[in-house]
């Protein structure tokens, strides 16, 4: 346990120090959301109808694009070799790294949601619903995105390829995340059903993500 705690602590520290990318994700989220009205027009009624979708898309892109370097940095400086050799199972180490990433880069997105909700003319209930669904859904994004990050190390390619690989995997999360928020705002569907599925998706990805990432890292060693 100390090993995992140490790994989480280290990754969060690096993310928050100079050169770390923790808050750039939030800035990206903000920028994406601000760009939307320029595309669809400043009609507040329209924006509030599209709001949950815009916020979800922004959060999805922000949390996936910051994942790019999750394993790459450790691979480049040789840390990944030592992590692989250690007594801690690689699956757990991967899960710890993803958790640290979510804490440093995912949680700030949720904190920023109310401010962005204001820009999109969402009322309190709608903003709360979006924030809640993001809280339940972003772990799924991080843990599935982790697979792409591991593949990026294996393939020695980062960036867009990773996005292309991972974005399709995140479609279910997007569907049920937006569905749950819309249900809370306008109905007529109940909030509970899509929200439960969203939570289930997160839990499943919590299991699949670390195993797939670890498997891909193990086979990609050289």
């Amino acid at each position, binding site marked *: 346990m100390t090993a995992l705690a140490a790994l989480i602590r280290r990754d969060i520290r690096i993310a928050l120090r100079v*050169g770390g990318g923790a*808050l750039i994700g939030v800035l990206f989220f903000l*920028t994406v959301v601000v760009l939307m009205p320029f595309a669809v*027009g*400043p009609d507040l009624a329209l*924006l509030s109808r599209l709001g949950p979708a815009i916020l979800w898309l922004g959060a999805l892109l922000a949390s996936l694009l910051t994942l790019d370097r999750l394993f790459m940095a450790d691979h480049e400086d040789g840390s990944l070799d030592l992590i692989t050799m250690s007594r801690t199972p690689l699956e757990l180490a991967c899960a710890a790294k993803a958790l640290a990433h979510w804490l440093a880069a995912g949680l700030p997105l949720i904190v920023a949601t109310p401010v962005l909700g204001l820009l999109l003319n969402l009322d309190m209930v709608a903003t709360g619903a979006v924030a809640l669904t993001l809280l339940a859904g972003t772990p799924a994004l991080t843990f599935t995105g982790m697979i792409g990050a591991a593949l990026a190390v294996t393939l020695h390619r980062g960036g867009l390829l990773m996005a292309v690989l991972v974005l399709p995997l995140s479609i279910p999360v997007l569907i049920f995340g937006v569905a749950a928020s819309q249900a809370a705002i306008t109905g007529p569907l109940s909030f509970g059903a899509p929200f439960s599925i969203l939570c289930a998706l997160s839990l499943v990805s919590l299991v699949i993500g670390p195993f797939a990432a670890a498997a891909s890292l193990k086979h990609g060693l050289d």
Partner: protein
Amino acid sequence: MTLTDLANPTRFLALSARVLPWLAAATVILLTIGLYQSATAPDDYQQGATVKIMFIHVPNAWLSMFVWGVMSVASLGTLVWRHPLADVAAKAAAPIGASFTFLALLTGSLWGRPMWGTYWEWDARLTSVLILFLMYLGLMALWRAVEDPSRAARAAAVLTLVGAINLPIIKFSVDWWNTLHQPASVMRMGASTLDKSFLIPLLVMAVAFTLLFVTLHMAAMRNEILRRRVRSLQMMQASRVAFSSEVGTGSREENASKGVA
């Protein structure tokens, strides 16, 4: 005293240490006067007491642009004249500019609340300020992303100047976008028929806020210079030859800590 005298960081530290208390005092006095005058200014017949937000909002909005101007000049200094203080000035100004811009947005949306019924309207002016705010944040992220300040300085200088050229274009586009979508905008800020009872406090506040910026900027520059000194002292300490005797280095560390304090 000329500009070249100021170029030396050590001289700048000495000089600013003398000037700073006076500047701070002047800022406090002017701010007090300005706030008092704003508080006693009459309510607007249309907007009521909310009009008083203007006395804070307008100076902040003015400074949000002024600070970018200051940074642009500093960036020219970095790129063209390689002035040793230029990138310090540019770096120190960014967070302050971002704060003023944020305050302009905040007061703007508080002002807008009773006018529009929402905290945020994609009004042309506010939207331009929001984009300016994003650019400030991006610039700060750039400064933070690169560990070596002199390397970050060039990138930031280029970005600042590109931003300075682009800002009018962005402003124009946003205006065009906005009028395209909603003709006859909701609100007119700073109307031309500003009464003298509003104008004088507003001018006082504008000067007071500008002084506030100068004070904060000078203090931030001092911090930045000292931070860089700490950094180079740390690098010196790191490069100290291993196993060297402690005698020679002890005094240097003492000097270092004196210099930093």
